[in-house]
């Protein structure tokens, strides 16, 4: 394994809550585990764990703000629990590129569906799945989709055009 520089090491620390926990107790162990260049180790050892955690929280909050844009209804259902639940998921999960925010929203939703499925808006989940897929077409039906405080049957249709841009059409049925 090649040695890494200070910026790469700090980046790993900021992305990984578990690594930060180990760093707080044993900074030298983490420097060695990361194979940090010897010339960068003094600066790395001087990082204050509380400050690293604070900086990491700033990055997590930025992620949360982006994820919320994909999940307005789900975030509304979660209310004040949204941030602590996101924090629990995001502190030890960092989404891969490309389309980081979309992938982040998908993975957060996936986690929520395992823990509290009723709090995930099905329409938003369908949208995320299609956006991340390579599919050209999808259709989803729900018997009771929430909208304006009323549950109605709802159909969502997604398709991709030749430029690979996707569109969504949806309609609710009044019975």
């Amino acid at each position, binding site marked *: 394994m090649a040695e890494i520089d200070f910026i790469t090491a700090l980046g790993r620390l900021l992305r990984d809550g578990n690594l930060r926990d180990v760093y707080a107790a044993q900074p030298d162990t983490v420097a060695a585990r990361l194979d940090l260049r010897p010339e960068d180790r003094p600066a790395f050892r*001087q990082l204050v764990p509380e*400050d690293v955690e604070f900086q990491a929280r700033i990055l997590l909050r930025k992620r949360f703000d982006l994820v919320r844009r994909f999940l307005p209804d789900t975030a509304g259902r979660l209310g004040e629990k949204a941030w602590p639940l996101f924090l629990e998921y995001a502190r030890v999960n960092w989404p891969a590129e490309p389309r980081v925010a979309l992938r982040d929203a998908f993975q957060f939703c996936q986690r929520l569906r395992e823990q509290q499925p009723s709090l995930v808006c099905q329409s938003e989940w369908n949208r995320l799945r299609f956006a991340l897929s390579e599919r050209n077409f999808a259709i989803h039906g729900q018997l009771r989709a929430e909208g304006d405080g009323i549950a109605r049957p709802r159909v969502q249709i997604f398709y991709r055009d030749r430029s690979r841009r996707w569109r969504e059409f949806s309609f609710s049925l009044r019975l």
Partner: protein
Amino acid sequence: MNIGLGYRRELDAWIDSQPPDVDCLELTAEHFFLDGEETLSRLAQKFQLYVHGLGLSLGTPGPPDSRRLDQFARVVRLANPAWISDHIAFTRTSEADLGHLNPVPPTRAMLRVIADHAREVSERCQKPILLENITSHLQLTGDLSETDFLNQLCERAGCGLLLDVTNLFINSRNHGYDARQWLHAIEPGRITQLHIVGYARAGERYTDSHSQPIQEELIELARAVVRHAPVQAITLEWDEDFPATPDLELEIAKLKRIRGRD
């Protein structure tokens, strides 16, 4: 000295009315990466523009992200700003995009990385570049003091400094140093533009929420900067919880007080 603000779509209606005290706008390049040609051309006809980047990640060792640089250069071409700027920071590593600004250590090695990247961006865009100090909750150490690092960085990169007065104030409070002493250690001729917005508090810490009215201490500090350096522009950097028009006008009036002719 030009007075202005960061252009945000939420403020479009007010900006479009051409407020008499607003001379310039600072555009965030990333907001126009995918579209916005029409808006850029409309704004360029009415205001002096500056293009500000958030994610060129000048502090990341290695070559710059060529796709981002292409997108940034496209916005610069469309806006034809007086200058461009980005931060003394990294937002990505060789392994991942971190999505936001992070501090760099004040070392000679880092100085070379940022200066080389800044020169490359400036040459690519054919515009002068300014580098901005960030808020940092980490106090990183290196073989230079922060002020020596900034002076030498500007010298090596042949660039100016975009001094964020709020960030200077926040860092001085969080890390316990004198902001005016720091200011007087900076080569005045490099300070070209100022950013300002009110600070916020999170427990013991000062933070930059970009959503608070400018406090009196910040006005005093900004006035000290203007007395110290030939500042050419000052821009309000409001990003969240946008105020109503009368409140926005009050903030612009504070910038006029900082300029000192009003």
